[in-house]
């Protein structure tokens, strides 16, 4: 008598040709097995046709809308740049100074001895750490929903390194690829008392906008360019 497992594996087309032929012959010569095979085929057909009605039913809108790409966080950088220019006539120098200053001010509070700190100091330079480094490595601005960190823009600087702007719980900033790490070029603390809501705020920190303006070469990456850059390891 054929084992149950083998019998059903035959019924499900899981046996190789030789073994299938052997079971086939055994079933053909045994009315009880023939009956069992027919019953199971019919039971499966009933189950399948009942569940298959779902394939033809409309997918509820609540599900189909979330399957669609969430709109990328659009930062109208050109408009911001146009607005910013008259206000800051000698922008690059000013921005670089501001960035240095901002890093100096926030490092004291942003680099506590905790594993959750967004940045770490190594060889006198500031790098993205832990969760922030992971977000910079993996997250696409075009596909983020409610991650703790948000990625803004991705672009190349004048030296050709890829840079990404980000916003995390208590700060926003700019990090550029340096070897296998993200060197932080600027980090701007959220205004006092706004830390929690800071990442929800629509506007970019003007200091960060200025820093990006002085760093960027060409246009920021679009969604496809961002993904391609990630797939190549941000080289």
């Amino acid at each position, binding site marked *: 008598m054929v084992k149950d497992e083998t019998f059903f594996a035959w019924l499900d087309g899981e046996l190789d040709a030789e073994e299938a032929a052997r079971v086939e012959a055994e079933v053909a010569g045994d009315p009880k097995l023939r009956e069992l095979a027919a019953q199971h085929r019919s039971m499966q057909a009933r189950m399948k046709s*009942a569940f298959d009605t*779902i394939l033809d039913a409309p997918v509820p809108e609540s599900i189909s809308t979330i399957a669609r790409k969430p709109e990328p966080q659009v930062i109208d950088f050109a408009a911001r740049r146009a607005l910013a220019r008259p206000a800051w006539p000698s922008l690059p120098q000013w921005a670089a100074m501001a960035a240095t200053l901002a890093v100096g001010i926030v490092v004291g509070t942003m680099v506590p001895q905790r594993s959750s700190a967004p940045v770490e100091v190594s060889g006198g330079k500031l790098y993205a750490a832990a969760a922030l480094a992971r977000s910079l490595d993996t997250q696409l601005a075009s*596909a983020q929903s409610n991650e703790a960190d948000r990625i803004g823009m991705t672009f190349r600087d004048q030296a050709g390194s890829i840079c990404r702007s980000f916003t995390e719980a208590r700060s926003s900033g700019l990090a550029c690829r340096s070897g296998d790490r993200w060197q932080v070029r600027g980090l701007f603390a959220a205004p006092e008392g706004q830390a929690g809501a800071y990442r929800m705020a629509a506007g970019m920190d003007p200091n960060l906008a200025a820093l990006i303006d002085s760093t960027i070469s060409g246009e920021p990456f679009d969604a496809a360019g961002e993904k391609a850059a990630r797939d190549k390891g941000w080289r």
Partner: protein
Amino acid sequence: MDRHLPFEDELTALLPRLRRFAHALARSPSDADDLTQMTVERAIRSRSQWQPGTRLDSWLYRIMRNIWIDTVRSRARKEKFEAPPEEADSIGVDPTGGMEASMDLQRVMAAMQRLPEEQREVVALILIEGFGYREAAEMLDLPIGTVSSRLVRGRAALLALVGA
């Protein structure tokens, strides 16, 4: 030409199959749609973990199965300290409405609910979703022999429940 559809398009195309799998696992149509929605949300959040070129369907089924197991376990923990489940919980009919399931669908969903979870997931993947034993074993992280013996028991129970 190895041109892949964008992630969102592939995901959208798979929604009807995901819903079918959810209905085979969950106890009511509204639970099934909650399960589908949670699966899609998690898939979008963790899309960077999916490797393009590998099967998106298997990846999604696996996510759904894990969410379902978590839900079942946390519900079991809760119900240990609460009143026994209402009658409506043990049959596959959603008393609050949701989508109106056909009589046939209600019957087969009710039958699936009578199977132990470890048989139900195997039956759903192989008999309803049409995966091979090996694919199902990989999705469930089980040896193929375990899958095949659970399928035998699940089949026997279903034959008794829904008839031939």
